[in-house]
């Protein structure tokens, strides 16, 4: 609680106690009025002062003025009529309770959300003359060696020069899988160093580092206003004057009408009272506070899950997404080549891999690398004595006494070796020893383990069409899209073709539908910005992706796309609930007030109660359901 909140809470308590005590005091006349003025002034003095200032500054239509006018009017009616001062005090009291609650709830969720985004490093350790000193990360120049102790946050992006450790990236990605860091590894700010001391040479300034960029992005997100927010701002602008005007009508028209035409008594006090009731309802607080709060909470909840949304407008659009277009390489697949199939002929699988890896021992080709990776560390790969590389075909290596041939089908043909053709998509390597065929190995871009779940989740959540775009061959694209259950796929596309393809899909979509494109952000930048919504995957540390896209997934898990859509839908649903609920209740109360069925008590409940409920409802947007972990 802030000082101001504490002070206001004390005012609320004192005046409510006083009010209850005074209700039972048997005093009458002016003494009664004077006594009741004490709690009224305690609870309402700041409102009255603000209202006065508002008039002086020619800003009359603010809520303070309305509250002051309504309660003062109620007091005048009480003095001249029934002597019920309670109403004026109660209205002021409830109004203050509402304000207090609002400031408390907003402050609380503000803190909650900033705690979620607690990746801002406070200091950096720099070695100066043999001593480790803490300095402001702003002052660290690029190329400085900083020291990160276990338990500390990495303040600035850089490269490890000394030390080994594991890093916790959960603040950035929402996943608690630790990452290893060893000399030569690039590390990004915002990660927490878990185990060992690290010396890091910074490669960026603090301002340009990942943690600063992310914070900047999230904090500025709410300045891109959604349609609902724009609507509310416009609505609030006309709503208050409109209600004040109708209050004036209610106060004047019916009495004048009854005097002139029915020649019955005007009953001014009754109609003025009803008009004052109008004024109490006229504050649009519930809407004005709850809509941006919902979006802020939604964006906060998403960022905790490693989904950065660049603005409320994107969150709103995402909720209407019906078509999701994927880039294949790096998005649905890992973008790294891996051994995906081993078909040995009369030999152990491992032995085939080992022999092929040995033949490719000196090769720097990515294929050789993935072969070595597939063999693993537990088997010895001997170096060949001599290697004969046949360009465009493969390698013939002499290993000990054996001649090992490893390469494509052309190599087998060339050497006159009989082989079993393998039609799988990807790169196929045939291996033979001393002209005897041993089997084939398929190396291809591996599908991410969560890709097929991701597509299934999207379908389940009502996405009408999923499309895959790739520069890869038709057979590879076909195999993957069938495996994942993607509706449409377009293969052998150049980067420029992808933009054209997305434009065609955009022109074909139905009205009101949103097309989202998910890509890895590095070479898909034009497509990302062309689609209604660009989702960049695996953006940790990639500036280009953060720039070009509207939504950034910090890790490269495609299942986060459906999660992001779920978050956006929940958030938008809450916003709509709040809009309809607040406007609905207010309209009902206005009508009831005009008919004399609702008094000022009901009006203040309608105002404050609706606001409290709307604020509580907004905070729900922060909570993100954690779905079952994908296998």
């Amino acid at each position, binding site marked *: 609680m802030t000082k101001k909140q504490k002070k206001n809470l004390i005012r609320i308590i004192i005046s409510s106690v006083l009010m209850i005590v005074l209700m039972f005091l048997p005093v009458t006349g002016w003494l009664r009025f004077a006594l009741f003025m004490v709690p009224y002034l305690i609870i309402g003095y700041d409102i009255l002062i603000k209202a006065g200032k508002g008039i002086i500054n020619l800003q009359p239509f603010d809520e303070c003025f309305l509250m002051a006018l309504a309660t003062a009017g109620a007091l005048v009616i009480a003095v001249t009529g029934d002597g019920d001062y309670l109403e004026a005090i109660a209205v002021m009291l409830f109004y203050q309770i509402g304000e207090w609650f609002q400031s408390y709830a907003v402050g609380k969720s503000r803190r909650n959300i900033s705690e979620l985004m607690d990746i801002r490093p406070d200091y950096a350790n720099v070695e100066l003359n043999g001593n480790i000193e803490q300095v402001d990360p702003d002052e660290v120049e690029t190329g400085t060696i900083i020291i990160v102790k276990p338990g500390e946050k990495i303040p600035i992006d850089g490269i490890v020069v000394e030390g080994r450790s594991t890093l916790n990236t959960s603040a950035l990605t929402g996943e608690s899988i630790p990452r290893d860091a060893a000399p030569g590894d690039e590390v990004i700010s915002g990660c927490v160093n878990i185990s060992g001391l690290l010396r890091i040479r910074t490669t960026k300034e603090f301002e340009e580092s990942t943690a600063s960029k992310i914070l900047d992005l999230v904090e500025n997100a*709410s300045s891109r206003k959604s349609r609902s927010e724009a609507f509310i*701002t416009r609505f609030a602008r006309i709503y208050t004057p409109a209600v004040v005007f109708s209050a004036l009508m209610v106060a004047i028209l019916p009495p004048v009408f009854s005097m002139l035409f029915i020649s019955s008594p005007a009953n001014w006090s009754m109609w003025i009272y009803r008009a004052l009731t109008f004024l109490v309802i006229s504050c*649009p607080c519930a809407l004005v506070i709850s809509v941006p709060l919902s979006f802020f909470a939604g964006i906060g909840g998403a960022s905790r899950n490693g989904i950065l949304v660049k603005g409320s407008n994107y969150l709103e659009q995402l909720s209407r997404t019906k078509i999701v277009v994927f880039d294949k390489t790096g998005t649905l697949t890992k973008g790294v080549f891996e051994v995906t199939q081993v078909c040995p002929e009369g030999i152990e699988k491992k032995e085939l891999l080992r022999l092929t890896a040995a033949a490719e021992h000196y090769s720097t080709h990515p294929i050789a690398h993935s072969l070595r990776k597939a063999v693993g560390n537990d088997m010895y790969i001997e170096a060949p004595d001599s290697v004969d590389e046949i360009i465009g075909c493969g390698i013939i290596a002499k290993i000990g006494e054996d001649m090992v041939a490893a390469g494509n089908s052309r190599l087998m043909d060339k050497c006159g070796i009989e082989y079993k053709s393998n039609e799988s998509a990807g790169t196929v390597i045939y291996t033979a020893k001393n002209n005897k065929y041993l089997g084939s190995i398929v190396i291809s871009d591996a599908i991410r383990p969560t890709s097929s779940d991701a597509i299934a989740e999207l379908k389940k959540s009502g996405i009408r069409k999923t499309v895959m775009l790739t520069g890869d061959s038709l057979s590879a694209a076909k195999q993957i899209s069938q495996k994942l259950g993607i509706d449409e796929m377009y293969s052998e596309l150049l980067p420029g073709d992808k933009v054209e393809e997305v434009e065609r899909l955009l022109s074909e979509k139905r009205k009101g539908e949103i097309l989202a494109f998910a890509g890895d952000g590095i070479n898909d930048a034009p497509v990302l910005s062309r689609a209604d919504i660009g989702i960049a995957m695996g953006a940790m540390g990639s500036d280009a992706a953060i720039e070009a896209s509207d939504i950034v997934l910090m890790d490269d898990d495609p299942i986060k796309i459906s999660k992001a859509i779920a978050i956006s839908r929940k958030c938008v649903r809450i916003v709509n609930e709040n809009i309809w609920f607040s406007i609905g209740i207010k309209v009902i109360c206005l009508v009831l007030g005009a008919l004399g069925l609702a008094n000022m008590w009901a009006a203040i409940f309608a105002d404050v109660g609706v606001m409290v409920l709307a604020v509580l409802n907004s905070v729900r947007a922060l909570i993100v359901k954690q779905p079952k972990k994908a296998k």
Partner: protein
Amino acid sequence: MKKIYKIEVDCANCAAKMEDAAKKIDGVKDAVVNFMTLKMKVEFEDGADTETVMDNVFKACRKIEPDCEIYYK
């Protein structure tokens, strides 16, 4: 030039009013008030003296919202 200031304000409506008021001040190219993060981002026109501009922004904001605070000094 852009600068970000910490502010204090009680309600979202008032924050929106502050934004409008700040935009109208001479030397301010654009202003955005973020109620949720309690920050005011001011983009100054070239050659504007930030200190005097902010004095005027603050005065204008105080006028519409007597409670508000901008930490710019």
